[in-house]
């Protein structure tokens, strides 16, 4: 059985890889693409640690076939910072201790960024329901929610609408 050849765009740059037809996008990211920032917690779409965006839409990369990436635009945790300049969410997570072990953090940040892109003024309830698909076992979510709300305020006050390469 021959592998599929996929051409796609990841974090604004062209990328290509070989994969099996049954490989998920998460398999492709962590395998041939060497982008191990997205994590596998469950491989069944229940934990969100593999979150990426597909054409600016938040999805679980474990619930997408790698083959589907052809011709689309993907963004992963590796594309959030600009060189050594952290995204405001990343900086705020560090300042507010919104992570402990860090395994859920990639997914949380990608998901939170997707929220703020869609809704720059979320309420606490909106943040909590948006992030319901991102499991965290260490923090009890408190500091994560606070960090997202504060970053939303900061970004509005500084007139930052998006933070893209």
């Amino acid at each position, binding site marked *: 059985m021959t592998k599929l050849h996929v051409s796609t765009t990841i974090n604004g740059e062209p990328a290509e890889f070989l994969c099996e037809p049954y490989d998920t996008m998460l398999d492709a990211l962590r395998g041939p693409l060497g982008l191990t920032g997205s994590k596998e917690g469950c491989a069944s779409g229940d934990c969100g640690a593999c979150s990426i965006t597909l054409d600016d839409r938040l999805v679980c990369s474990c619930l997408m076939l790698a083959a589907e990436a052809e011709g689309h635009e993907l963004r992963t945790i590796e594309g959030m910072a600009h060189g050594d300049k952290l995204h405001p969410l990343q900086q705020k997570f560090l300042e507010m201790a919104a992570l*402990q072990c860090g395994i859920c953090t990639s997914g949380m940040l990608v998901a939170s960024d997707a929220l703020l892109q869609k809704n720059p003024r979320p309420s606490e309830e909106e943040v909590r329901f948006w992030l319901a698909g991102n499991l965290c076992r260490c923090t009890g979510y408190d500091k994560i929610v606070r960090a997202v709300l504060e970053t939303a305020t900061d970004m509005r006050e500084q007139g930052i609408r998006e933070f893209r390469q």
Partner: protein
Amino acid sequence: MNVITNNKWIGQRTIRPDGADKVTGRAAFAADTTMPGMIWGKVLRSPHPHARIKSIDTSKAEALPGVKAVVTSRDIVDFPIDKSVMLGIQDMRWMCRNVMAREKALFPGHPVAAVAATSEAIAARACELIEVEYEVLPWSVEIEDALLPGAPILHDFMKFEGKPSNIGGRIEVKKGDIAEGFAAAEIVIERSFATRPVHQGYIEPHACLISVGADNKTTIWSSSQGQFMVRAMTAYLTGIPQSDIRAIPAEIGGGFGGKTIVYLEPLATLLAKKSGRPVKMVMTREEVMRATGPTSGSKSTVKIGATRDGKIVAAQGTFYLQAGALPGSPIRGAVGCSFSPYDIPHVLSVGFDVLSNRSKVAAYRAPGAPIGAYAVECVLDELAEALKMDPLALRLKNAAKQGTKAAHGPVFPRIGYIETLEAAKAHPHYTAPLGKLQGRGVASGFWFNAGGESSAQVNITEDGNVVVTTGHPDIGGSRAAIANICAELLGIDYRRVSVLIGDTATIGFSNLTGGSRVLFASAMVVTQSTDKVIATLRERAAKIWEIDPEAVKWENGAAHPASPNAGQFEPLTLAELAAKAPQMGGPIGAGVQLNTEGAEGGFGTHICDVEVDPELGIVRVIRYTAVQDVGRAIHPGYVEGQMQGGVAQGIGWALNEEYIYNKDGKVDNPGFLDYRMPVCSDLPMLDTVMVEVPNPKHPQGVKGVGEVPLVPVMAAVANAVHNALGKRFYSLPMSPPKVLEVIEG
């Protein structure tokens, strides 16, 4: 003890030194690592809860193209039943049977063989080709079934009171005379409780990458709570000497006690040795849920007697905890901690370790204590209600303090339990108004905390900064706290201190990350190492100034003359002394290795508000305040984080988490869909109050904080639900169907 009070860094919310990599996806967890030539390992697991293994034929698997090695229990060192070999608290007789079934498969998911092949798909296919002949045996999962007369006995060698039994052990803690105690009681409440097994729920599955050279030199990357434990267990189980194994702790994606033993490492090591290739093994979520130890299910009975004025005179507890397929449930925690917050003259606390055909239990955050506290704190709530006393007032009246002989034996030194009760009572949460169908509950809890071995190395770089190497995996932000301490002692900016976790080759022996001991132990050795470095720096300055080292003081990152009498000299900074190091005596650094002592237990008092939907039986936690005596909050953000994390786990345990078994004895919910941990929208903000009563036996007053927060939670939630509904709950989880049943009588 010299607790630093004029703090620049201790008590500050600094940025953790490992943070940038964690928020950019760069931090290397075990499954992120690769090595050239790497192949993949997979495990074949028993489908049966209990079966004799009559034969295993691996020939077809070995013949499959791409398969490089196959391992069975024959390859694993046997520890004979008649001789206990302890590694910490783990008995290697059980460990060697847990990592792979020997004579019998003891639970569904028990490893029976392992394969390494050039792709995951081939390894999985090879497992399907292994032919195992099983003689299926009767089984039991639940405690009550395992204890029935005629229940299938898991191990012929296990005897209790002279007869073959599924009781793996019994322990007891006694104080005074329990009969005398109850005779003096004017009110006695006795209740029985049941809890289900729950999993630690770490989001990162177990993973390792292991390479074994032709000379046996072995390198292990793994997700674990202790690289020294990994090295030792792997050595014991594979026969490779410890000195030939280098165990490197990868960043760990959650453990909570569940990663204080090994599952994959011995198998991957043997596969790597046999194949001559590095082997990577990663568990699926289903494997984690089926085959790694959740904590015990339990059946407990607690009886408390008091006089009408609220003084508790007698307390008795009997705790049956599920061990799983091999001995070792955390009865010590249930028996030893549950009554410890109270000064009770007569106590009898007994625990039974009950074996059954489910996976062997693994430690879970204050192992055993949350189970015991659930029962005791609920009975205390009933007692308060019967005596028409405020529940916090009842606890204050009986609170343990300095000088109290704890139920589990020691005499308490200066502790902070009363402070937590008073802080809870004074907190606005305690008197905030409640709405319709809302209720409030309180509960307290205690956990021993541990000390133990730790090593550290503090080295000054040639450019005058600091590298600290410690020995414990960081699961809660300990690197941040260590940076705060070292920077404080040296009087320099915390960003000039790099904190790394060494592996077994680069740092001295350090015991597990667990027992709420990492900061306690590592802070002690880092402090001593830094003190030695400071002594060296003073000597170097003294040499340069040609005065006595006694006349030199170290302050704000530089050496100064201790007084005008010592002479007029410009301060010598850390950078200046580092630059002169080669000429002035050599490298500046010091290491300390200790078996640290002086760890003190911790206490928590929690307040929980719930709202109930009485038509659907749904309980939601709407407000939560956790008060804890934390010793000294070196980095408040990460101490709060430990408290909030423990509370969230306890809420899950109280309301929705449970292992569900089907009629074939298999786990029916081995995934995050139906093993229902709290999601973001399930919880409110979790408020914390850190009461600082410094540990007098620690240079910075540090006390362990990680485990206490789980202990009071289930009782706090259960007591709140009672306050909302007027009905008591004697079993967990309080899931909607069970709540509705109780509401409807």
